[in-house]
């Protein structure tokens, strides 16, 4: 992993507020060369502001930004070796595709027309837009505009590329294709990509490193597998994928009690009789016959999701989400089994008890909140 590479950008104690409202609260972050790093969080968590501070469009109230070891707090954007792909592309509407992409070279006073044309062609090839040179940017589809924006940002060979929710406006299929393309582009060019998104799936599938943010603070920094398998607190566990987060007591190393039952787990070092949060992913729960299950409960709802059924089960008043390929009938009583390595233990945090119960769960509500997230930032 690229963690072994050279440190390229360091954020040290960055604080920023707008109109008295704290948007970033003492953020510190290291970004390495050749890394695909994603800032992930809901709207208003400060991810875009962090990006804008790195790009030079905002300056921090306090704290320092270092680039290659040099403090760049007061360096304007046009003097940074950083380029940006903006959320709504921000292409120049009075220029055609060719001139949009060539813009950076023209500003840099590259006089040789042949060099410009070669590099523009190279960029167009990279983003699969050969033959679009003379097209007007307003005649392009969202996906094509996106590609022009990427080509325009990469032509000056920046050391870092900032991407601010670049796929937010594309439809699902196109978005998946672009995710792969962006990942490949990053590998091929070796440029550090700093990617901002609220889509956890996107973050997990593309990144070397994921930074989970909430309310101006960094919750956790780690590889996608770390973040998914070892969430630091209830907030991260809930934000990344689905999770059941149950109140529990760590009886001893490798032994945790929840819902009135004692389970074997693989975690240790929490001490004896320590209150903890227990995370169990819905796909790790096995449905068994009621009499042979470790826990028993009544099915309250079943939703067909294509690959699996999403089942909500009431176990002692706590609603669990289970994903299973076997159909269970609503109102049936079922038993569940959980393997030791499917149990993840977290220390109690300020987020304990706020997430991970599916009693008020509704797909519709989920979809609504996701839409509203796309609005701002």
């Amino acid at each position, binding site marked *: 992993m690229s963690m072994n590479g050279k440190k390229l950008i360091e954020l040290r104690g960055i604080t920023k507020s707008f109109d008295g409202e704290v948007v970033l609260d003492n953020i510190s972050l290291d970004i390495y060369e050749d890394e695909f790093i994603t800032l992930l969080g809901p709207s208003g968590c400060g991810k875009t502001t962090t990006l804008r501070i790195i790009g030079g469009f905002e300056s921090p109230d306090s704290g320092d930004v270092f680039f290659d070891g040099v403090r760049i707090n007061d360096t304007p954007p046009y003097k940074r070796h950083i380029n940006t792909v903006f959320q709504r592309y921000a292409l120049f509407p009075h220029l055609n595709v060719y001139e949009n992409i060539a813009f950076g070279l023209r*500003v840099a006073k590259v006089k040789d027309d042949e060099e410009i044309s070669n590099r523009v062609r190279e960029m167009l090839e990279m983003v699969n837009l050969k033959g679009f040179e003379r097209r007007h940017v307003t005649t392009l589809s969202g996906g094509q505009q996106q590609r022009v924006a990427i080509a325009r*940002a990469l032509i000056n060979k920046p050391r870092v590329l900032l991407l601010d929710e670049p796929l937010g406006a594309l439809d699902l299929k196109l978005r998946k294709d672009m995710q792969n393309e962006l990942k490949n582009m990053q590998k091929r060019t070796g440029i550090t990509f700093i990617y901002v998104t609220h889509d956890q799936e996107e973050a997990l599938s593309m990144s070397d490193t994921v930074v989970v943010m909430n309310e101006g603070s960094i919750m956790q920094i780690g590889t996608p597998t770390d973040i998914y398998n070892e969430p630091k607190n209830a907030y991260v566990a809930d934000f990344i994928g689905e999770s059941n987060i149950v109140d529990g007591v760590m009886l001893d190393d490798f032994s945790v009690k929840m819902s009135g039952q004692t389970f074997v787990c693989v975690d240790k070092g929490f001490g004896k009789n320590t209150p903890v949060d227990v995370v169990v992913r819905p796909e790790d729960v096995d449905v068994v016959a009621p009499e042979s299950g470790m826990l028993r409960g009544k099915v309250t709802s079943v939703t067909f999701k294509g690959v699996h059924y999403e089942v909500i089960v009431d176990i002692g008043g706590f609603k669990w989400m289970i994903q299973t390929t076997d159909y269970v009938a609503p109102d049936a009583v079922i038993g569940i089994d959980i393997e030791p390595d499917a149990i993840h233990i977290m220390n109690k945090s300020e987020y304990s008890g706020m997430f991970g119960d599916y009693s008020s769960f509704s797909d519709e509500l989920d979809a609504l909140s996701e839409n509203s997230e796309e609005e701002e930032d």
Partner: protein
Amino acid sequence: MKILSRIYLILVFIFLYAPIAVMILISFNSGESTTEMQGLSLYWYREMLRDSATLEALRNTLVLSISSAVISTVVGTLAAVGIHRMRNRFLRGAVMSVTNIPMMNPDIVTGISLMLLFVFVGTLLGLESYLSFWTLLIAHVTFNLPYVILSVLPKLKQMDKNIPEAALDLGCTPIQSFFKVELPFIMPGVVTGFIMAFTLSFDDFVISNFTSGSSFETLTIHIYSMIKKSVKPDIYALSTLIFAAVLLLLVVYNMSDRSERADAKTEKRRTLRFRGKEGGAAK
């Protein structure tokens, strides 16, 4: 009902254009009468071209309206950019109100107050004649400015704030960003502002009457002074020519506007077609 509404429409247009039609007709009259057509001729057009005072007034008016339009377009565009960038909402509101007042203010009030100011300052400086081309120019720039600002501001608001940022991101200094990216974007608003300023300045009478000295006569003032003596048909000839010029300007402006709209339409159609293709390829 349909016939009634059509008749109504025709009446409205007659009401609007009959005076102009009569004026155009009489301008071709060969006699001096303003009531009786004695035959068609270009006599009064020739007369008008021979009248050096009228021609000078026309020249003065063109010089004044073009220079005041240029100045107010430059100053007004810069002002709009400044107002647009103001972060303090209260301050921006205050500046906008101050900008709008000269527009709402009756011309006669603006004219008298400007005259008073010029006389006052002129006395302070000990000038011989208080009013001149320069006071007229200042007055015209003053009443043109709000129109330019109001036609440029909406274009600035339309512009995604990321667009100038993208220019900075790609290496432009703020000045370069303004000329390379922002100005082309707001250009339609700037042009509209210029045309408005030009026409307002061209046909202004009230404010000009108060702020021009005897040394500099604009067309409107000249015509007014002629009417006081006797109305000769060469004024109709001149008015007809001005009307034709304005009509031409309007037609050209509308045509460029329409071609822009047509562009947008074909572009939209093209985009839809390409969307379709993309969808097909995905399958």
